[in-house]
């Protein structure tokens, strides 16, 4: 995976003077960022500042209204819908409101990226078992998503985001609905993934989480304020 990112140049996600507007004033403007492989970023800022919008620009769900966004060297504007779909297999996303297919078991939901990309989930059964075990979800493998607790849903969403062994993991408020202990476990999972070489970006407004992470990993903190993206100081 690392090698694949390296072949495309060192930058996995690159935003250049990007602006985004939902119509009626820009939400983000003049945003520039280069995510290098293996980096660990936090994205913070007040609610409604545009954290989710920023992440959506990073995985091609939104096309910038100005400026350029490049995913693995490809300009988002020139990508077809299927190009975007293929890029999503290399970018694992943990949604804020982790959505699942409610009629499939949790294990099948976690394996969904394999299913839709044409892999045979049976041949990856061992990986799936290990992953569920690693996330502490094994006992709940056959539960349907509505039966899961908030923490279990967050961990299942994370497991689904990483099952394809993506180069990048984007997580939007992954600890939003869980208690402190659970948020520490989730953070631990993300830190371990980063040590395996994955690029990680976590959007959160939980400063405690950021402080806790800084003890384990060299993380940079980006802050969205006044429609701009700034590198926050060390004094956080």
């Amino acid at each position: 995976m690392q090698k694949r990112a390296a072949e495309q140049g060192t930058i996995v996600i690159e935003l250049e003077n990007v602006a985004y507007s939902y119509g009626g004033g820009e939400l983000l403007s003049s945003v520039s960022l280069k995510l290098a492989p293996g980096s660990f970023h936090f994205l913070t800022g007040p609610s409604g500042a545009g954290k989710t919008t920023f992440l959506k620009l990073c995985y091609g769900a939104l096309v910038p209204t100005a400026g350029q966004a490049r995913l693995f060297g490809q300009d988002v504007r020139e990508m077809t819908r299927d190009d975007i779909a293929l890029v999503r297999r290399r970018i694992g996303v943990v949604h804020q409101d982790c959505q699942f297919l409610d009629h499939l078991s949790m294990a099948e939901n976690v394996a969904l990226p394999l299913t839709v990309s044409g892999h045979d989930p049976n041949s990856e059964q061992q990986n799936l078992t290990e992953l569920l075990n690693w996330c502490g979800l094994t006992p709940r493998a056959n539960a349907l998503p509505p039966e899961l607790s908030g923490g279990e849903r967050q961990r299942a969403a994370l497991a689904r985001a990483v099952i394809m062994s993506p180069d990048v993991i984007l997580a939007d408020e992954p600890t939003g609905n869980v208690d402190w202990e659970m948020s520490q476990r989730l953070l631990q999972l993300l830190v371990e993934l980063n040590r395996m070489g994955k690029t990680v970006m976590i959007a959160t407004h939980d400063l405690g989480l950021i402080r806790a992470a800084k003890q384990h990993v060299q993380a940079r903190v980006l802050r969205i304020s006044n429609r701009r993206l700034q590198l926050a100081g060390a004094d956080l």
Partner: protein
Amino acid sequence: MSLRDQIMALLSGDGSADRVVPPSGFTAHLTLFAAGVMTFLAVFALALSLATGRLADRWGDELARASTIRISAPPDQIQAQTEAALRVLDTTEGVSSARALTTDEQRSLLAPWFGANVPVEALPIPQLIEVIETSDGFDSAGLRLRLSAEAPGAVLDDHTRWRRPLVAAANRLRALGFLSILLIGGAMAAMITLAANAALAANAQVIEVLRLVGAEDRYIARAFVRRFTLRTATGALVGMLLGIVAILFLPSAQEEGGFLTGLGFQGGQWLWPILLPPVAALVAFLATRRAALRVLGDLT
């Protein structure tokens, strides 16, 4: 992937794509029902077209080659004029055979109007001569002239006057039958498109999740297309079987060859309705695929 590959992939089956869309009982039954009803109707439209087609061909064939000469003359001259007319016909180019109808035949022709025991001999009815043409036909104007010279009481009725509108009507009916089949196909495509759009709208969240985890449009579309195609094929199969059974139970044609009772299939024509389910499935495939790709194209 070409259209053909997609159809093959669809037939060979991909259970996983099927599983990702939750089962939906109600619309499934409606699709089955609509496909069944439409195919049932199509069987009748097909039967109508083929039966009127047969009728048009037969009328066209038989009537084109048969004419009648009617000899009205005083009773003492009828025999002489009949013989004179037959002599003229014998030497007319384009006449394959000609014969005077016997008294019994004339009586059976009149029986429907006067009853079976008409004393035909006692009535001043004209003598009829049946003329069968060769495939080239004869010159009716020339024949009339010669007849008027030899047998002044002879009137040639070459049937074209009343044949043409009948054949035209039968042909028109056949065209209407085929048009009905096309309209039924169109209505079925419209219904399936509506059902597919409803299913796509109801599963907007499923589509969003699939898109999020990197499913290509083709994969998402296939989940819906396969489902609707199989449903339609099943419904159409049932509708076709019921339609065939209904046709089988129609009373068979009487000797008079009544147009209504002749509705049905003959010989190789029974193969036509068997084509309806595959055609219905193809219509469903194309309609759902178009609907799915259009809906997906509008999403981000």
